[in-house]
Structure formats: structure tokens, C-alpha cells
């Protein structure tokens, strides 16, 4: 019982629904098979393989809903899980925000499955780890890394005729390579749907170069700097911002997208307003060729391309079916990825055109300070360099930043070609006046 085919999933879920006595019933079947390997101090520390399938059944009587889940699939267990969800539904209080489940839907073609990832073995993982450890050892450096891959399937069926099925694959690799004396540290990460694209030796060379290059960091005064953020450095701030996109909290006055102090007849949120540099366009697209996502969400509603920010203006906000109905707008579920349009400049070109600035590999421990302004704090990590007159001059000590992605996306100087990171597409960006508030001794 691991990765079920569309046909098998359909048969199983049809059987589950046949047990239902509720007004409405919806079933989600999700499973995955995957493995991982972890290494540190240039040796393997842990490794494992896991597989799991879970069936969740949601039953509704009127506006009372209950959910029960099981991971056994004989007929008796299937009937039991339906009965349990019905019992819970009867115990649940009335929900005045309850919305009916969706009927039959049409979906875009899925692009999320790659056979190469499904075929990865423990030996492949060990060999990929070795490709990272060996160059590190040769350079008298110390590697710590993690490789994890999985194939997943997801099927949804409900009593209103909806059926959705998707399979997907994902591989994540990251490595931190430090000098033996702890004075230098470099990092690189790779994320693909297709395992064939992964080259741990290539990624490790990047981390090795940054590790060696970061030894002997000098102190720079905290303050406002032009920064060049690699995609791994900006994805955290952008991800936080996109998670805060929500129509309901905006309408309720508790979001950066609220129209502060709006009168009764004024719009409650900032839909349509320009908030960012006009070069900023961020959207979700399940069919993106490099960072695809499932063509439906957990409720079976189809996903298509949707713009969140277009030309610097707020183009859409995700909402719930209840809030959409209440406010008389279309239901807009969250997307499965964040795709940000970029520009034509290369990272090297950006460095070349910078008189004085800071190159940031990644940001760490990002935490919110003020949800009204989306002010966040965090630190640079594993490769921070001073740029002067178009050249990387020397490594610098890590900084703490206190900055808002709203400010960041208004201060764009240049953008490069988007790269895949954590299932999203983010361009390298050159940003002016990025606020560093203090220095850190951490390497």
C-alpha cells in the first residue's frame, strides 16, 4: 500500500463513499514513499526510508462536520472510518461558516511527476552524499548535508461527483561546508522535481568556494546598504509576505493589505492598489515547467494561473469559500507555488554594476516584528561579501537585518533570471537601502 494508481484510488474511494450515510462525504487519500540521508563531520550520521498512506473522511450533517482518518484499508476499516467521521460530525457544534463541498471539476494537466525521482535507491543517496563529502575532505573542509526525496500521490473523491488525482516527485539537497577552524562557512541548496537534475558535487563546489572565501571576515558598520540577494536570501521574506496575503484578515483590518481606517463605504482592502515597484509581478501557476504544482488543492478545487501582484499592484488575494460568498467575490484558493518574474541581469552583472554593496547568500531565523508593516528580523548566513567598484572585495561578518519585503520590493535596482528554490521561482535581486541593524559574530 504505497503509491496507488488513479484506477486503484478511484476503486478504493468509490468503496469508501458507498459506506456513507451523511448528507455530504468527501475523502482524501494521500501517500508517499521516500528516503533520506544525513551527514556531518564528513561522515554519514543518519539515514532512513519511509512510506505511508492516509485516508481522511469528512462527513457532514447539515452544518456539522467531522473528520476521521485511518491507515488500514480492509473493508471493515474503511467502513469504520466513515462511521467515526459521522459520529464526530454529530458531536460537533453547528458551524455558521460551513460551506458545501464542490461538485465535479476539470483540471489542467499535471506536470509534477518524474520517474527518475521515484527510482532513487539507498545506494544512490549514499553515492550522492559521498560526492559531496569527498571534495570537501580533499579541500580539508568539513561537510554537513542532507538529501531527501519522495514520490507522493493524492486523490480526492466526494459524494457530489468530484474526483481528482495527482502524483508528484520532489528532491531537496542542502550542504553546509565549514573550514576546520570554524572561521569560514559556505552553503548551497538544490530543489527539483526531477532527480536527474541533481548534481551534489556541483552544489558542493559552490559551498566549498563560499566556505574558503568567507574566512577572515571584516566588520562593516550596520546601516542601509545596497544588497544583492541570491534567491535563497529573498525566498524567506517573500514566502512570509505571500502567506500574509489573505482577503479576510485584510477586510477585518488586521493585515498589511487592510485599508487602515476605511470608512463604511470605502474598500476594506488594498485590492488594485499599487504597493510595489512596477517590475514586481508574482503569481502561482501549477503548470510552470520548472516549479510545477498539483492542479488542485486539498479541497479539490482546480488551480490555474493566478496573479497576486501584477505590475506592482495587488491583483488578487486568497480567500475561503465562506468569505468569498460573504463579500460577493470569486473563491480564490492559495496557489501551490510562488513564481516571481525577474529581469535579464546575471548575478555577475549585478555585482559588476555595484559601486558599494553586500552580496547575501541566505537569510536565517526570520521572525515577524510587526504584521502591520510586515517588518521582519533575521540574519545573513554562510557567505556574506562586501562589493566595491564592481568586485567582491572581501568577506564580511554577518548582519542582523530589520526590514520589510514591502520596502524591499519598492527598492529594486535590478533583477536576474528566476531560479527554483523550495518549489518556487525567485530571481536574484539587487535592492537599495536594505536595513542592517547590528553585527553578528556567528560564522
Amino acid at each position: 500500500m504505497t503509491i496507488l494508481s488513479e484506477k486503484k484510488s478511484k476503486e478504493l474511494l468509490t468503496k469508501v463513499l458507498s459506506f456513507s450515510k451523511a448528507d455530504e462525504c468527501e475523502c482524501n487519500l494521500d501517500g508517499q514513499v521516500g528516503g533520506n540521508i544525513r551527514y556531518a563531520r564528513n561522515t554519514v550520521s543518519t539515514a532512513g526510508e519511509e512510506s505511508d498512506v492516509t485516508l481522511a473522511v469528512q462527513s457532514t450533517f447539515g452544518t456539522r462536520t467531522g473528520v476521521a482518518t485511518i491507515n488500514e484499508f480492509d473493508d471493515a476499516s474503511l467502513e469504520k472510518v466513515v462511521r467515526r467521521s459521522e459520529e464526530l460530525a454529530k458531536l460537533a457544534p453547528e458551524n455558521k461558516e460551513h460551506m458545501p463541498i464542490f461538485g465535479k471539476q476539470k483540471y489542467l494537466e499535471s506536470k509534477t511527476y518524474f520517474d527518475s525521482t521515484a527510482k532513487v535507491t539507498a545506494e544512490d543517496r549514499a553515492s550522492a552524499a559521498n560526492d559531496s563529502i569527498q571534495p570537501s575532505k580533499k579541500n580539508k573542509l568539513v561537510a554537513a548535508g542532507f538529501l531527501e526525496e519522495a514520490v507522493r500521490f493524492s486523490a480526492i473523491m466526494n459524494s457530489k461527483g468530484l474526483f481528482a488525482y495527482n502524483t508528484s516527485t520532489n528532491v531537496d539537497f542542502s550542504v553546509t561546508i565549514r573550514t576546520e577552524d570554524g572561521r569560514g562557512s559556505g552553503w548551497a541548496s538544490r530543489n527539483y522535481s526531477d532527480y536527474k537534475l541533481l548534481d551534489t558535487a556541483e552544489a558542493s563546489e559552490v559551498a566549498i568556494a563560499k566556505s574558503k572565501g568567507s574566512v577572515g571576515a571584516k566588520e562593516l558598520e550596520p546601516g542601509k546598504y545596497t544588497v544583492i540577494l541570491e534567491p535563497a536570501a529573498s525566498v524567506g521574506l517573500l514566502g512570509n509576505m505571500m502567506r500574509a496575503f489573505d482577503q479576510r484578515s485584510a477586510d477585518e483590518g488586521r493585515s498589511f493589505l487592510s485599508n487602515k481606517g476605511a470608512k463604511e463605504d470605502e474598500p476594506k482592502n488594498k485590492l488594485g492598489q499599487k504597493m510595489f515597484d512596477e517590475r514586481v509581478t508574482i503569481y502561482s501557476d501549477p503548470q510552470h515547467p520548472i516549479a510545477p504544482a498539483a492542479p488542485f488543492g486539498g479541497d479539490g478545487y482546480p488551480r490555474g494561473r493566478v496573479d497576486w501582484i501584477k505590475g506592482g499592484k495587488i491583483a488578487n488575494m486568497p480567500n475561503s469559500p465562506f468569505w468569498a460568498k460573504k463579500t460577493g467575490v470569486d473563491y480564490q484558493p492559495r496557489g501551490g507555488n510562488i513564481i516571481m518574474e525577474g529581469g535579464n541581469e546575471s548575478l555577475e552583472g549585478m555585482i559588476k554594476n555595484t559601486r558599494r554593496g553586500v552580496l547575501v547568500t541566505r537569510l536565517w531565523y526570520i521572525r515577524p516584528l510587526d504584521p502591520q508593516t510586515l517588518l521582519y528580523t533575521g540574519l545573513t548566513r554562510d557567505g556574506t561579501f562586501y562589493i566595491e567598484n564592481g568586485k567582491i572585495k572581501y568577506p564580511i561578518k554577518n548582519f542582523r537585518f530589520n526590514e520589510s519585503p514591502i520596502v524591499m520590493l519598492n527598492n529594486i535596482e535590478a533583477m536576474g533570471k528566476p531560479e527554483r528554490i523550495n518549489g518556487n521561482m525567485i530571481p536574484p535581486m539587487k535592492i537599495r537601502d536594505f536595513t542592517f541593524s547590528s553585527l553578528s559574530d556567528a560564522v
Partner: protein
Amino acid sequence: MERRDFIKLGGYGAGALMLPISGVAVSAEQLLDRPMDVAQKKKLANIALNAAKAKGATYADARIGRYLNQFVTTREARVSNIVNTESAGIGVRVIANGTWGFASTSNMTPDSIARTAEKAVAVAIANSKFQTAPVKLAPVKGVGDVSWQTPIKKNAIEIPIKEKVDLLLSVNDAAMKNGANFINSSLFLVNEQKYFASTDGSYIDQDVHRLWAPFTATSVGPEGFKQRNGLGNPVGMGFEYLEGKEEDKIRVSGANIGYKNSYDIIEDAAEAGKQLKAKLKAKSVEPGKYDLVLDPAHLMLTIHESVGHPLELDRVLGYEANFAGTSFATLDKWKSKKFQYGSDIVNLFADKTQKHSLGYVEYDDEGVKTKEWDLVKDGILVNYQATRDQVHMIDQNESHGCSYSQSWRDVQFQRMSNVSLRPNKEDLSADDVIKDVEKGIYIAGRGSFSIDQQRYNFQFGGQLFYEIKDGKIVDQIEDVAYQSNTQQFWNSCVQMAGKSDYRVGGTFFDGKGQPSQVSAVSHGCPTTRFNNINVINTARNV
């Protein structure tokens, strides 16, 4: 952490909580079943241990776990979600060819268990190709058959759902009546029924209970909006924690009410409503140097980040370099016996034995009896937190009992124990600590927190901020965060309250490892003063 490990509770927006769920949902009555007795667990565990030994394991342990969770989430006058989850299975860890191997299964047939143990050995042997330093375990004497339970008075899972829902809706009502426009409140209950067996001859059955009742209240005004989280703590207690006894309330003159061994959540919600109104109108802090007086519900997190994490031996050694990071508290500093972690009144200790704490168990997840030990004594760094396979690296031969796994499915590894600050021998109150401060800020509750990967530079916010002038709290202020360096900060510690003020706070979801696992851990401390700390203003125009 993988997104699939979370469910989203409490609706969208600022109040939403992402929670790790390791189990599957079941009905309430199912949670009370005890499907497997100890004799049966012992039989199954022995199958795993014997199968591992037969394949060449030199050591093996088996953890048979049944993990129950219940989550009730509400917003305003509505219940958002009621979820019961259960997860049961076995995890087998072995040493073969001097290398760790691990495998787990939810299929509890004898054959499946034996095959899982064999798989763990196969993983160990495969990985031993790249092993350069064979695992060396500190000795542990088998304890035979023993059992232990968190000392609870009311098993929270047995309390009817209706009582829980009514309590949370009363909390919401209290906040809304007193000034909040929105509120999300939740109740999280955890019961870990875990059985540990090892080839050392230990068969340990433990029943661990934890509870947390957080809320986030929001007020919206023409000035914008403000939030205030509850000041209660996650605890290793039953439903009795929510009785809110008078003797457990600590009142700080001109400021908030603190809670000791029980929590009046309705009172706290009402206070939150009033304080939110004040927060909307409060003046913004003038940045600069201040003497800080930190209440225990706030300081616990500063201890967690600036003491608990840097003194985890796996971080010091580099095992977490690719994720959580390493540590500034390197072995040479410890070996010198002179590293001044804090001022000489700073005494920080570790334990998994403190009553009401989240880390409280009798044995850790590799069968080591728990204990208390010093980390920082009279300001000097004296020890770390370590597991059986690590202590030899710091020339010790007894594990500290810091091994933990979030479920049967995941391998156990070194996790933070409770780490606490000893109170002043003189039994001073919070007011006594405040009374000598000329220019200061009193901070209550945990807010935003961020620290670098070696635990030098940190920045912390809070829930409530009060200006102190000439020994008295004068006004509620806003937009406060302090930035400091761990060693500098602890060396600026000048005074603390005594044992009557000592409170245990904690965190339910401390994340570490790859794949990431969560752990619950507590930190005890009294109200404490730190001099001349850099305070920044977090308000910003965008």
C-alpha cells in the same frame, strides 16, 4: 519542516497556527482505549531486539509508541476545528559495524517487526562504508521492568469536548467584552504512551501528558491593529492547570498578572482585551540603553535560545551545522574552566526531573534515568547536554539523558532538556527587582525571537512592555525589542527574584534535525534584571 507534517488550525490570517501532527484523526472515545498491555509490548519489543542481534547488531533498542493528540480551536463565538489524532507503531534503532541504523513501521505483526529490525541493521551496514568514527555508547545498566506516569490530577483527554469548547468560548467572550475585536484560542493536548526496550535489559513503560492553551487577541483601531497573546504556558500537567488558583497568581504592581502552577485563562483574556486598548494608544519606545526587567514568561524563551541551544553538544560538535547551526560555546571555552558565560550570580542548570515541566520523564528515549546537572555555575560554563553516544567526546562516562524522538516513526537524537535559571537565595519579589531601576523597561510574555546560528546575536520582543522610571512602572509602551550578544547579556545580569517568584514556562514546538522533529521543553526562572541593554524601536513606515 515538511508541510505535510502540519495541519492548519484556527482559520486564516495572523491568528492561524501551524501545528505538527504526527498521528491520524480518531474519535474521542477511541483515545481512551488501551489496545496493548505491557506484556504484549515486551513480547513484540523482544522480537525486534532478537531479530537485530541475529543479523549482527551489537546494540538495539525498540520504542513502541502510541501518540495521542487532541486539538480544539476556536475563533470569536465559533469552533473552528476539533481534531483527535492517534499514531501507533514501532521504531528500531541498532548499531552494526559501529554505525547507527534505524527503521520503523506501523505494521505491528511479529513478522513485520522482525523485518523492520533487519532493515535497520541493513541500513547500518550500508552506511558503515562511509563511517569514520564508530559509535561509542556510555554504559547504561538495564533496569528491568519499570513504569512511570506524568503526575496529573485530571487527564485532559478524558474531559468532555463540551467542557473544553465552553471554556475556550468563555475565553473569547472575556477578551471581546474587554476590548478585543478578534480572538483565536486553542487547546492542545498530548499523550505519549511509550515503551522502551533495549539489549541492555531495560523495559520501560512511560505515560507522558502535556497541555497548552494559547490565544491571540487582536484589536483594530483607526491607528492600526495590535495583538496580545496569552501569558499561560505549555506544561506537563493535566486539566488542573486551567483551574487558575489565586495562590498561583503573581501580581506585578502597575503591570500584568503572572501565572505559576495554574492558569486563569479567562482572567488573562479579559486582561488582554484591556491591555490591547492601551497598546493601540501607547507611546512608541525611545530607542537606547535601558535596564531590562524580564518576567519569567518572557525570559524562558531567552534562556531557551541563548543557553539551551548553544549548550547542546551535537551543535557544538557540528552535527547540526547544515540546519540549526553550531555554537559559540566551543569545547575550548568549556575546557578552560574560565569561560564567563554570565555574571557570577548566574546559575543555569539542566534537568528532565522538574515537576510540571514539559521535559519531565523518568527515563529518556534511550533508557537513561533522568537527572539534574549544572551547565553554568557561578557564571562559568561547566557542562553541556549530551546523549549516550556523545558523552565520551567530553570525557564523561554517563549520559545526561537528553535523547528524545517525536514519535515511534522517527529516530531519537539529542534534544534540549529543561534548562533553568536558579532563583535568588534571598526571596525577592518582582516588585523588589523593579524598585531600584531608574530607567528601564519591564517586559512580559514571549514575542518575536531571532538568534544567529551560533547563538551570539539575538533580538527579542514581548507581549507587554512597561516603562520603569525611578523604581516604578509608569506606562505601557510599544514597539520594543532588545538586541544583545549572549555572553554580554548574561554578564549584565545583576539581580533576580527568589523562589516564590520562580515560574516554569516552555515551548511545545522546538524544531531541530533533518528531517525536522519537534520537542517540548520547559525553562524555569524568576523575574530577572539585566543592565544597560540596547533597545530598538520596531515601528516602521512603509
